[in-house]
């Protein structure tokens, strides 16, 4: 891959990341599962478990149907205080695996604003992603949000 191709790839994947956080931060949850492949894996995992090689997370899905179920549940079943997220991401590193597969690593901070108008750093962590090229463009085959902020304040409804 020449320099130009590398830059182009980074730019495409950065755009995917921007779209991902835009969907979550602007209450377009129904779009969220569409950024994943059907056989995807999605997890939100405490760093302390990851460091010890332990599998448990606060969310773990191993297909796209589970992501859609989560959205329907959040929209219609679960009760939680209205809130919004603002994701800040940085440090995107990409490692091509083959022509249609790339591993990605980046940092994130999520600032949450609850109904009383107070904003707080809700979660800081890193994304470890694998993306694949599909007919619709790049999609997440695997996305793991590994969070440093070991305690979840009150509850976690909206995905990270």
């Amino acid at each position: 891959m020449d320099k130009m191709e590398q830059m182009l790839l980074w730019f495409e994947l950065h755009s995917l990341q921007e779209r991902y956080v835009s969907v979550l931060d602007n209450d377009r949850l129904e779009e969220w599962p569409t950024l994943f492949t059907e056989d995807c894996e999605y997890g939100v995992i405490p760093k302390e478990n990851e460091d010890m090689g332990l599998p448990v997370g606060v969310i773990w899905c191993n297909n796209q149907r589970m992501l859609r179920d989560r959205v329907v549940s959040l929209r219609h079943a679960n009760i939680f205080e209205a809130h919004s997220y603002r994701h800040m991401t940085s440090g995107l590193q990409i490692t091509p695996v083959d022509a249609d597969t790339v591993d990605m690593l980046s940092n994130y901070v999520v600032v949450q604003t609850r109904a009383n108008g107070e904003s707080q750093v809700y979660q800081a962590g890193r994304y470890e992603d694998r993306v694949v090229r599909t007919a619709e463009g790049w999609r997440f085959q695997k996305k793991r949000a590994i969070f440093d902020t070991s305690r979840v304040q009150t509850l976690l409804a909206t995905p990270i």
Partner: protein
Amino acid sequence: MSAVPTSEGAAPAPAHKLAFFPREDGSRVPYEVFSSQEIYDLEQERIFRGPTWSFLALEAEIPKPGDYKSTFVGDTPVVVTRSEDGELAAWVNRCSHRGAMVCRNARGNASSHSCVYHQWSFDQRGNLLGVPFRRGQKHMTGMPKDFDPKCHSLRQLKVESYRGLVFATFSDEAPTLPDYLGNEMRPWVDRIFHKPVEYLGCTRQYSQSNWKLYYENVKDPYHASMLHLFHTTFNIFRVGMHARSLPDATHGLHSIITVTKNEEETSAAYKQQGIRSMDDGFRLEDESVLGHVKEYDELTTNHIQTIFPQLVIQQIHNTLVARQLLPKGPDNFELIFHFFGYTDDTPELRELRLKQANLVGPAGYISMEDTEATELVQRGTRRDPKATSVIEMARDNPGQQDSNITESLIRRFWVGYQQLMGF
């Protein structure tokens, strides 16, 4: 009994008690127990350092000699360790020299522990091993001649394990651990811990509400189908269910709630559900999150067992969790979900347990609302310490145990709490 009138003209509170429960059956709880710093401090003495056993860890978290974990009894920092001979020990994480925290890691493995401040070192049981410059150096004098290291161990707790669950107590008055668990509770602990378990990791949740509000919540089967709408929303039938709400007979502070399927009725209902699925409404696209592999005698979907003061044992479908409840001042608690499986799990069963972890914990489909509810109570009651809750459901039938439309376990809890606290 001397009494002083209160300015609000409410029932007079006895002068020597911090909280006044106007009824003896636990059906009226003064809201001050959720926000008073004085009551909170007394709880640390009478409950957490009193004749109770506090859950610290699963033995599976510290399997090897030298393994340790930092945790708490109430809000006292303690470290639980396994010594070279395989025995369990626990000590207060406060250096016997000038009070620094000795152990600064959440978990690890160490043959001894030394305090960074002046390097006093302690063995795995908390006995003082060494003091730098104890005998001085050159012309500089060391510790006094009468300094006896044996008198300066870390404060040690009594530790016992029951079927792989590690508990500790500060008190010499506490009964033995099996007696403390009691005849009603032990069979249910045995049910879950009937074979070796493997620790799968933890998730942590922090709530801006009093720790006892969480205890009320896990003794409250009444809220389950009211607050948690997951099953209803997805049209998941729960017919032919048999309910149990059992208190511990000694003091009422422990309890177990179960919901069990009648297997024949359930399969009939599922056939009906197949027909009903033509209806409008939501359906789960991946129903395996509510799958259930039968592992015990009964097909119990929910086993929620509280062991006072800081453990809730949970089996929901095939997820297994030891929840540790830690008070952090009157207005906050931390809840740590220790997930586990059995060492002989098949890969399929292990995957199911991980998938069903989506049901519980901070993002749990049928649990995320609990901390929301306890915070609503905290915020609603803060300004009215003398007002009380109204805990009446099934009060006319205190002996009924085959119901989940009841608040009897909560009333029993408060009666036991009053006894321990001297209220």
